[in-house]
């Protein structure tokens, strides 16, 4: 079935001790959109992402993905049905090279099954060549060519962020959740990245769900933008509308941001 909503979060809550990090929150992401999620620090955005991507289980409520109730699914199961996420604090594979970090992403590689590695080396190899080619393209795009063979643990903060983003380009996912990819990434490169996200969205039909504090980026990419505060959704709409809301401006932007 193909509903219009690819992610539908229904009344989810998550408590940490006494704190309600996410509080009876409902929101949804339209297929084919680039939906932004903004809100003050500690609003519960990452927690919400963690629940959507299966990293933590909600205390209450449901997460519907592509028409299916996926509440309580494990992250790898969600990946298999087409959901991919990045982490706010980079989660690289520190003892593997940057290239390997990308090459491990594609699912259903025949070489990931013992029997195939033993008895079907040719199949494994041909697939491996494809994966490698793809990974090299992504690396070049991210301008990480010179650290391709460096251990990911030794990369600079921003380079790790790029790698995090690069993973999303390794597979054809229905939905990509980006948790603050821009933080720490050089602006010049970020412009290229934004262009790429737009292209993936318009040409390949990816849906993006983006947490960001970089308002330029949100303004450029996202429609609609959802605003969270204290674990709840407080507003949704196009960026211009959000910026016109004085309460949000006060709580979130601090001072009116000049329109770019």
């Amino acid at each position, binding site marked *: 079935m193909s509903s219009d909503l690819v992610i539908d979060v229904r009344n989810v809550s998550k408590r*940490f001790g006494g704190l309600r990090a996410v509080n009876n929150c409902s929101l949804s992401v339209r297929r084919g959109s680039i939906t932004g999620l*903004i*809100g*003050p*620090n*500690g*609003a519960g955005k*990452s927690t919400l992402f963690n629940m959507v991507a299966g990293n933590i289980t909600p205390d209450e409520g449901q997460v519907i993905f592509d028409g299916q109730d996926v509440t309580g699914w494990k992250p790898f199961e969600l990946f298999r049905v087409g959901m991919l996420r990045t982490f*706010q*604090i*980079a989660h690289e594979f520190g003892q593997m090279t940057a290239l390997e970090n990308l090459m491990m992403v594609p699912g259903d590689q025949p070489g990931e099954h013992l029997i195939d590695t033993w008895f079907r080396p040719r199949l494994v190899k041909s697939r491996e060549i494809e994966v490698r080619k793809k990974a090299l393209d992504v690396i070049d795009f991210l*301008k990480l060519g010179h*650290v391709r063979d460096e251990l990911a643990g*030794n*990369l*600079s*903060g*921003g*380079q790790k*962020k*790029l790698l995090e983003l690069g993973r999303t380009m390794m597979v054809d996912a229905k939905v990509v959740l980006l948790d*603050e990819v821009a*933080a*720490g*990434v*050089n*602006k*010049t*490169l*970020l*412009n290229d990245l934004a262009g790429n996200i737009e292209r993936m969205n318009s040409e390949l039909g990816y849906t993006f769900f983006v947490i960001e*504090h970089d*308002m330029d980026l949100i303004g450029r990419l996202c429609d609609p933008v959802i605003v969270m505060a204290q674990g709840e959704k407080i507003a949704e709409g196009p960026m211009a509308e959000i910026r016109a809301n004085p309460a949000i401006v006060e*709580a*979130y*932007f*601090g*001072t009116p*941001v000049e329109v770019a």
Partner: protein
Amino acid sequence: MALIELKQVVGGYGGAPILNGVNIAIEKTDIGVIVGPNGAGKSTTLKAIFGLLKVTGGTIDFGGENIANSLPDKLVPKGLSFVPQEKNVFTSMNVEENLEMGAFTRRDDFRQTMNWVYGMFPVLAEKRRQPAGELSGGQRQMVAMGRALMSKPSLLMLDEPSAGLSPRYVIEIFETIQRVNKEGVGILMVEQNARQALAFASKGFVLAQGQNRFTGTGPELIADPEVAKSFLGG
């Protein structure tokens, strides 16, 4: 005389050098901002000053002596303080204990300083008993900066202090930094929010591949079309 001055600093993590002759000079009244592409060696420069990696060439003058390769426990009492880019809070300790650790080298009463920090970041005062590991990304950044201020440094080094902060806090942090600077603390920071940071920087350094590419005041750099195009995102 400059508060801190790096002359032709060369250094790295054991393999090929990452820094190939970095020059930086900051006065007590300065806010210095280092910008540059990812992997340029910005964080490495700060770490080199702070004795966290081996400096193999050049000098680092601070308070009239060469501090290259001194360890942090000698540098903090001398008035240097540093907020790393990642893993910059004690996750199992609560907010208040994090701040106390920042004052570790101080023997005097630091309650005053702590209240000042809480005044700057009211959220932290609310969460003073909460382990820092359970804070949101932005809240952690505040704890980290608060911790560094607790030692009452004369030079505060910050590695991307605004990363992950909501716009409101970015503005606030930058204002705070300027306020701190006015109280007589020299600032040297790395920023990817380059335009915003350079706007109030009295010294700007563009680093690429471990070397100075451009140096000037912040506004000068913003105005330079080449810098803007290649490093500030047009």
